[in-house]
């Protein structure tokens, strides 16, 4: 056994070595053999997926019809349906009800006053839980007013108010359908996989074609992006309902519908709320990307700031998104809790029972009437706003002027000794060899099924003509993941072993995770300018969190008996960590790395904005040229890379768990 193992591992190391050598010298080798096809796939072998998808798309948009109703008419009708409530919310919260043409249209009714909205939020907080929540919600909205983000924030809020119910409700219904029809679930599952791994940019173009340019398309894209977790959680939550409750419901003679809505859904409401929370978070995550195709609001402010490289403005708008997210999230959680409780109707007139509603409505009326005389009641005075923009700009300027050489040295060091060698190796490996190695790896860790998956998906990437770009993607993503792991895992271990450090690290990770991904880009671009290094830093920052969290969780959950056993056999602290804790936590750490890879891939598309040259850039180009096929093919290639990585790492983690006897 021992001998075979060493033979196997030496064979594995040998293959790795051959691969690296091929990477370094593959180019020369291909030249020497006069076989350029080894490095670059001949264009005659490339299957033109993108033109086929594009023409299918233009057929769909221009010619497809069911009877007299063309496909475009149907999608435009949906767009119209969504637009009506959205316009209403937008008028109420942000623009006011206007009438008439020209530069100064007649204001029929101004937008709701900032005072009225803030009070309404406070009242809602008090209604849902207590004064504590009311204070948090009120403070969040006051922040928006004081920091001059009010108008944009209300535009964003209007889209959240529309997108979240549609996303959560649609997700719930789809989830219920899949729960009732197991075959539906089997079809749905891979679709959800793809929806979550294809970068959002890739499906923005088809959406633009179907729903038209403007905020409605942005809303539709947001809903598509935010719904999958809700569907998954619904299916899981319904399945997890105690079978006894189910039987009880049946015995009570409920119809199918009653069983679902009166028994199952209420019992699962706790988990369902987690799904709603996810929808809210993803919706707010999406606001910046949505602003690329016409959504206004805070997202557009961040994007515009990034384009101007105005770090202060971008940062403030980014923080405002976070603040809004906190307020909406806390309120919705409390609201759901409150709805779950049983209420006794107190006696008295309607007005007496709804004091808060009456208060808010009358306040709205009063501010509308008095607002005619004092604009202060309607709009927060611009002169009273605070801005920290100058501070951030100055800080970056100071760093740039005084430490330019240091930054440059760090950048060059990383490029020469870390990034470029990896890039050169990966781009040099002949593609047939790479596919063969991937297949072999899949077979080793997960059997022939995984081998087939790896082989077919990587071959598909190759014949779509995107091999070089895919390798650049793997390189950027891989380098970032290595760095994130090197930083994240030690941090996680430290957080698990030292309580005080744990609190500080948790705070850091929470902050990193709530900030919208775009916000990282701005300061990094200012300090390191455009290029791969900048992209890598932004990706590391964004993808660090799961590496830390899973490592900490893994180390914490090592069983006490094992630690004791280690102590008894005389381990030092260091040995305990190296020989007991880390090996036992390995499966968890691997899962963390898996999540890090997924986040890194999703960030890649965003770093296209700072000039990387990978699949993300391909998707971005397709978006800006409205080229459906090109975007979807590149998006699918990214999804394939994600799926291959996910399956390989998961299989590896399972292997590790089996080896340590944690799973059979």
């Amino acid at each position, binding site marked *: 056994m021992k001998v075979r193992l060493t033979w196997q591992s030496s064979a594995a190391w040998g293959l790795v070595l051959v691969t690296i050598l091929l990477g370094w010298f593959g180019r020369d080798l291909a030249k020497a053999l006069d076989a350029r096809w080894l490095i670059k796939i001949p264009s005659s072998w490339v299957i033109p997926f993108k033109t086929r998808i594009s023409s299918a798309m233009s057929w769909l948009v221009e010619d497809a019809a069911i009877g007299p109703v063309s496909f475009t008419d149907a999608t435009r009708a949906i767009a119209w349906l969504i637009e009506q409530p959205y316009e209403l919310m937008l008028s109420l919260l942000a623009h006011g009800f206007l*009438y*008439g*043409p*020209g*530069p*100064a*249209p*007649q204001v*029929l009714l101004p937008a709701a006053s900032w005072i009225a909205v803030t009070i309404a939020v406070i009242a809602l907080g008090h209604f849902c839980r207590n004064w504590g929540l009311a204070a948090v919600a009120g403070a969040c909205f006051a922040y928006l007013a004081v920091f001059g983000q009010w108008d944009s924030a209300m535009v964003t809020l209007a889209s959240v108010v529309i997108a979240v119910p549609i996303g959560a409700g649609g997700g719930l219904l789809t989830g219920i359908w899949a729960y009732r029809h197991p075959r539906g679930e089997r079809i749905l599952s891979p679709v959800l996989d793809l929806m979550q791994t294809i970068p959002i940019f890739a499906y923005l*173009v088809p959406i*633009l*074609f179907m729903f*038209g*340019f*403007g905020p409605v398309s942005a809303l539709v894209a947001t809903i598509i992006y935010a719904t999958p977790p809700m569907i998954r959680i619904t299916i899981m939550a319904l399945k997890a309902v105690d079978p006894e409750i189910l039987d009880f419901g049946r015995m009570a003679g409920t119809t199918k519908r009653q069983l679902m809505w009166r028994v199952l859904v209420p019992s699962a409401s706790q988990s369902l709320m987690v799904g709603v929370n996810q929808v809210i978070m993803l919706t707010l995550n999406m606001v910046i990307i949505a*602003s*690329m*195709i*016409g959504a*206004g609001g805070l997202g*557009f402010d961040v994007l515009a700031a*990034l*384009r*101007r*490289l105005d770090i202060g403005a971008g940062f403030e708008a980014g923080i405002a998104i976070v603040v809004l997210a906190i307020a909406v999230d806390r309120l919705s959680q409390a609201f759901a809790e409150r709805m779950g409780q049983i209420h006794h109707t107190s006696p008295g007139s309607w007005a007496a029972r709804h004091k808060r509603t009456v208060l808010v409505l009358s306040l709205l009326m009063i501010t509308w009437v008095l607002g005619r005389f004092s604009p202060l009641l309607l709009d927060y005075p611009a002169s009273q706003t605070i801005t920290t923009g100058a501070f951030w700009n100055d800080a970056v300027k100071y760093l*740039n002027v005084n430490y*330019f050489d240091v930054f440059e040295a760090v*950048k*060059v060091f990383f*490029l*020469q000794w870390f990034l*470029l060698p990896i890039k050169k190796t990966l781009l040099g490996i002949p593609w047939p060899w790479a596919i063969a190695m991937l297949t072999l790896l899949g077979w080793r860790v997960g059997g022939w099924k995984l081998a087939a998956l790896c082989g077919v998906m990587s071959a598909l990437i190759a014949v779509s003509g995107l091999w070089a770009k895919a390798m650049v993607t793997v390189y950027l993503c891989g380098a970032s993941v290595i760095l994130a792991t090197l930083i994240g895992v030690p941090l996680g271990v430290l957080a698990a072993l030292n309580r005080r450090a744990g609190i500080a690290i948790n705070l850091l990770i929470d902050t990193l995770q709530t900030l919208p991904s775009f916000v990282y880009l701005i300061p990094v*671009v*200012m300090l390191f*300018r*455009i*290029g*791969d*290094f900048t992209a890598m830093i932004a990706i590391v920052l964004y993808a660090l969190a799961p590496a830390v969290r899973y490592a900490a969780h893994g180390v914490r959950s090592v069983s006490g008996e094992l630690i004791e056993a280690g102590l008894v056999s005389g381990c030092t602290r260091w040995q305990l960590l190296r020989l007991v804790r880390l090996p036992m936590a390995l499966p968890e750490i691997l899962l963390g790395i898996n999540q890090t890879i997924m986040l890194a891939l999703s960030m890649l598309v965003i770093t*296209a*904005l*700072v*000039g990387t*040259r990978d699949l993300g*850039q391909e998707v*971005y*180009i397709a*978006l*800006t*040229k*409205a080229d459906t096929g090109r975007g979807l093919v590149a998006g699918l290639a990214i999804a394939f890379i994600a799926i291959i990585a996910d399956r390989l790492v998961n299989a590896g983690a399972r292997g590790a768990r089996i080896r340590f006897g944690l799973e059979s």
Partner: protein
Amino acid sequence: MLRNFNALGAVALTAAVSAPSAWAAESSDPIKLTLHDWSGQLINTKIMGSILQEAGYNVEYVQADYIAQFAGLKTGDLHLAMEIWETTGREALDEATASGKVVNAGETGLMAIEEWWYPAYMKDRCPGLPDWQALKDCAEEFATAETSPYGRYVGGPVTWGGFDEERVEALELEFEVVHAGTDAALFAELESAYQRQDPIVLWVYVPHWAPAKYDGEFVEFPPYSSECYSDPSAGVNPDLAYDCGKPRGPIWKAAWAGLPEKWPGAYEIVQSYQITNEEMSAMVGKADLDGVDIDTVVSGWMTANKDRWSGWIGN
């Protein structure tokens, strides 16, 4: 009731003061103008929008991408694009007008140049410039750690097109094209390099403040011809197309084909609209260098040029 009456009165008033009444009777739907990602275009579009508003039209600005907008212009989701550059947008514009769903609304009066540009101090390090042949011999002078031993050329955001990768290959230049993600990043590179006299060659366009602020020149490539782009055998390299410089020429206005019917008055204003390179460069400089808000720059132009734009509305 009173409020309704007021509203009606206001409409009548605007109609009476600012425009011949026939125009105010045109559709009150908003005319949708597209916004892109560089300051000059934002200013240009907002000036046009302000003039249309003064003439009594409703206007809406929509964020859309430079090339992607044609899809929207064809369907009528978008109505007016103010800057289609001869240099980068001509093929897309021709393709769109050929479909009959988009019309070319004439020149803006701006003349575009887009080309490789270097600061004057690079001439000492690479004496043969501005002739492009010089780039062949001193590519290494332009190298950075990332691209070494190749020289680095900083291109515009990929969305601007420009065929620089093809140009590098066709002219056998030992350069690597690095795309700046945004307009601002592009000129931040220039600013940063210029301050430290670091080597750089990058995409600069006119009308813009950069050639006025920094001392430098455009590289002189073999002059553009349409054959050079379409026919590999034409030009310096017999095997590859794009072996020449970029085209130069006017910046066009493009509109949805339904615009002249739906808002005939507005279309006349759009056609009359003219602005000069000098004005535009100055305004872009104000916005980008002095950090003046774009809306302020626009309203500044509107006040200073009241007679000019009133004339466009009038005739």
